């Protein structure tokens, strides 16, 4: 403190000398081709649409092959999670006829939808509370995109369900959805694991596991044709 004060006394305010230098705006340094990126007012709507779709597809690809860690974290969007969540909720919803017994046969559309979003939000809040340095929507984006393997397993199970069922096919569905579960957990852990402080990684990964396990359980138990 005293060192600071003596310095402060030596250089009184107002006499700081001549300030020189250049003020660079870093974003001007991009190549010339990228400057067209921001001028999208007069491009056809098809191009805009396709570019966004390509970005979403690229993220799906990164979930399937989770090699580089930053690809999903850099630019988050919620289009992919919305697509996946809507798709899963549509397929998973139970039928309304309850003739044979009291069991309802499956969740409603809104229940799956809410389960996915609230679940992702709770897992994210958990990792924030544990002290992870990641923004809220980044984490929700990663958790949503990592549903992709589970959605794939849902498609395969749905195809299997069209044939007549027996025990072998049930175990096949079980194995497929467990592979989807393991894949999703692996990918999400790969993307989100580094944001946690040391010694708390297990605490952050466990809720992610639970979240994907519940969704995989919904996939396995979805059996009404």
């Amino acid at each position, binding site marked *: *403190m*005293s060192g600071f*004060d003596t310095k*402060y*006394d030596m250089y009184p305010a107002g006499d700081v000398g001549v300030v020189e230098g250049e003020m660079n705006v870093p974003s001007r340094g991009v190549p010339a081709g990228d400057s067209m990126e921001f001028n999208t007012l007069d491009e056809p709507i098809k191009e805009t649409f396709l570019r966004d779709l390509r970005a979403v597809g690229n993220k799906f690809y990164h979930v399937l092959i989770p090699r580089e860690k930053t690809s999903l974290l850099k630019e988050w969007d919620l289009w992919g999670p919305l697509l996946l969540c809507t798709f899963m909720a549509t397929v998973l919803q*139970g039928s309304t006829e309850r003739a*044979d*017994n*009291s*069991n*309802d*046969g*499956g*969740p409603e559309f809104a*229940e799956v939808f809410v389960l996915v979003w609230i679940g992702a939000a709770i897992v994210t*809040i*958990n990792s*924030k*509370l*544990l*002290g992870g340095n990641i923004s809220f929507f980044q984490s929700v984006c990663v958790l949503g995109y990592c549903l992709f393997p589970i959605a794939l397993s849902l498609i395969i199970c749905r195809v299997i369900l069209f044939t007549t069922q027996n025990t072998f096919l049930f175990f096949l569905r079980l194995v497929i959805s467990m592979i989807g579960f393991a894949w999703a957990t692996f990918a999400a852990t790969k993307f989100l694991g580094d944001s946690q402080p040391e*010694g*708390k*990684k*297990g*605490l952050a990964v*466990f*809720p992610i596991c*639970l979240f994907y*396990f*519940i969704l995989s*359980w*919904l996939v396995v*138990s979805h*059996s*009404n044709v």
Partner: protein
Amino acid sequence: MANINTGELLNFQDYSPEHNERSARIDVEAVHTNQYNNSMSNSSYTYEEPKIVEEPQSAPQTNHNFWTLEYYQKYFDVHTSEVVERIISSVLPQKVSRNYFDERIKGKPDLYGPIWISVTLIFTIAVSGNIANYLQSINKAVIWRYNYHLVSYAATAIVCYVWLVPLALWAALKWTTVPDGQDEMETQTPSTPTMISLFCLYGYSLSIYIPVAILWTIPISWLQWLLVLMAALVSGAVLIFWLLPALKKSKYFLILTSAIIGCHFLLAAGFMLYFFHVPDSQP
């Protein structure tokens, strides 16, 4: 709590005239805000007794608002090994030191364990309840369909149990404890456990039900009842074991003890009968 050296502040310190009273003013402000924050944080949870100040690591000041996420971060400041240790202590108390509850859980209660153990238990019961239902109907002619809404029933039961029972127990302990001497009032030793530490204890005591819920899927009636008795006795006994010093001070020691055990047994029996039990009278 106050990680400011009060002795140094109270001592006479002379400030040389060339000091432009900058440092002095900053220190006074620091003391002021510290006291203000302490009184604020104490008033937000009034049941907290004065902690024994032995925090050499000087945790960052918890001057966050009640509504912010950072306020709750102090309840999630645990490591994986600590959580594992607490789960073990809720089943096998001889593995940890005898005053583990007083030293560790009361001093640093966490909400991570209770919340995620409850959530895990809710979904374990829902999943294995469905499996049990499937195994029971495997011989019948009806086509089995799974019941998604077991989740909501299990969630209601567990959330009520984890939040309401510790609340009632905390209130009972607070208003039935007889102070057993004048000196205790003066020294202000912590007599009743805090509410958060009771939540923490109850949450961890549910952890034994997770493996038990998986075992309940075996459709043998006497085995299910045996598991109910075992789980309720083990985790109820551990609860009593940790709470014994506080319970002894209460006027209604026996009533409280039997209420704790009884609630635990009722919860286990309720789970088993509602989600897993094979009805005896087959049509």
